[in-house]
């Protein structure tokens, strides 16, 4: 049986891991490759690297990082942050990234999803969607959650699927940073309406939240950052706990 995936997210700035809340008060948290190896050894199923300060100038730093991660880590990993064209994606994939995630650039230019999917295959293309409940609807936001778009979550998710996304990484902005649990009900609806795998993000505060997530929504994967960084939840313990509660995971 296909297992549920636990995915730590590493925020990257200038080639270093950073920790902080809502992109402010960032502190250096060491070498991403060391942390990636630590997560991989403790049972992470996949890794997500998010370049939170992506600029053209530091793109080469990111590529160097991708090379090092690919050389040292033997589980799949994706890279996101400011990727807005096929050639940048090509460079990252060519240097060892397994998947590319795009967010604002996909909303601005939906053809990018189609182009990436045609060129590299849908399994390489994650569309990250940030959304929150706004005036009675789940609305999509871009630019780190600062810009409201015209899309409802479901409409945009369906469009990304039709255009060839291989996975959707959905972050509930209402839940993100609260540590009060994932947006399980919305995730259940989304998972039901969408035929590609969903990675859930935003709100993880403890192990029970992951159990609720998989129990209620049945999504394919759960992603978190701070609880793993600050060792509030240990990946190995989390997976054992899920397994004891009848959620199929890789141990």
């Amino acid at each position, binding site marked *: 049986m296909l297992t549920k995936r636990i995915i730590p997210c590493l925020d990257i700035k200038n080639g270093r891991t950073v920790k902080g809340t809502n992109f402010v008060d960032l502190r250096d948290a060491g070498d991403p490759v060391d942390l990636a190896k630590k997560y991989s050894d403790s049972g992470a199923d996949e890794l997500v690297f998010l370049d939170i300060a992506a600029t053209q100038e530091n793109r080469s730093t990111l590529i160097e990082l991708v090379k090092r991660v*690919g050389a040292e880590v033997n589980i799949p990993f994706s890279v996101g942050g400011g990727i807005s064209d096929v050639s940048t994606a090509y460079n990252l994939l060519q240097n060892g990234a*397994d998947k590319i995630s795009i967010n604002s650039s996909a909303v601005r230019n939906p053809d990018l999803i189609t182009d990436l999917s045609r060129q590299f*295959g849908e399994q*390489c293309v994650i569309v990250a969607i940030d959304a929150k409940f706004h005036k009675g609807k789940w609305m999509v936001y871009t630019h780190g959650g600062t810009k409201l778009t015209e899309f409802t979550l479901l409409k945009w998710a369906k469009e990304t699927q039709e255009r060839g996304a291989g996975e959707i990484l959905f972050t509930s902005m209402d839940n993100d940073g609260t540590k009060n649990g994932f947006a399980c009900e919305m995730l259940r609806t989304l998972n039901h309406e969408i*035929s590609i795998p969903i990675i859930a993000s935003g709100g993880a505060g403890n192990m029970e939240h992951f159990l609720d997530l998989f129990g209620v929504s049945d999504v394919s994967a759960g992603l978190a950052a701070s609880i793993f960084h600050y060792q509030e939840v240990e990946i190995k313990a989390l997976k054992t706990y899920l397994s004891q509660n009848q959620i199929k995971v890789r141990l």
Partner: protein
Amino acid sequence: MVAIINYGAGNTQSVINCLDRIQCEYILTDQPESILSADKVILPGVGHAATAMQSLKDKGLIEIIKNYEKPLLGICLGMQLLFDFSEEGDTTCLGIIPGKIMKFKPLTNEKIPHMGWNQISKRTLDPLYKDVVDNENFYFVHSYYAEISKYTETICEYIQTFTATCRYENFYGMQFHPEKSGKVGENLIQKFINL
């Protein structure tokens, strides 16, 4: 020396990284003579079956692969190409292993692609899998699968039972990505290299 066939497959760098980690010598090549002189060949594969076959054809590698007599390992799409035919783009493949590659048809709400870690179980005593315990997890990413046949060596369950790995004479296939399947995957590549 292992030859990795260079034909634009998406996971080529991951295979290279894996061979580096296990300190295996390799050459990345699309040259027939380099392929033929290698002790082992790896045919990586991520992408579309029709594009991949066209690329092998353009490089004049189809007959080279078919006539290769030492162990050859096809990974993911590389495995699927070893079969007769794929529903992906209704593509005629290499025709080395008898059988067809079919598209997954979800019964309820199963997701396509089949993406993530899933268990395999053995149907064979092939020494290649001697150290693989039943229900070991490997990393899969695919929307098409090989039907179960007498060439199936390990099986996996998703929507239905399908071929996780197979073998026909000196041609080995792995539907999952051993190069991305942690230590167990690396060990399996190592065993193939040691054949």
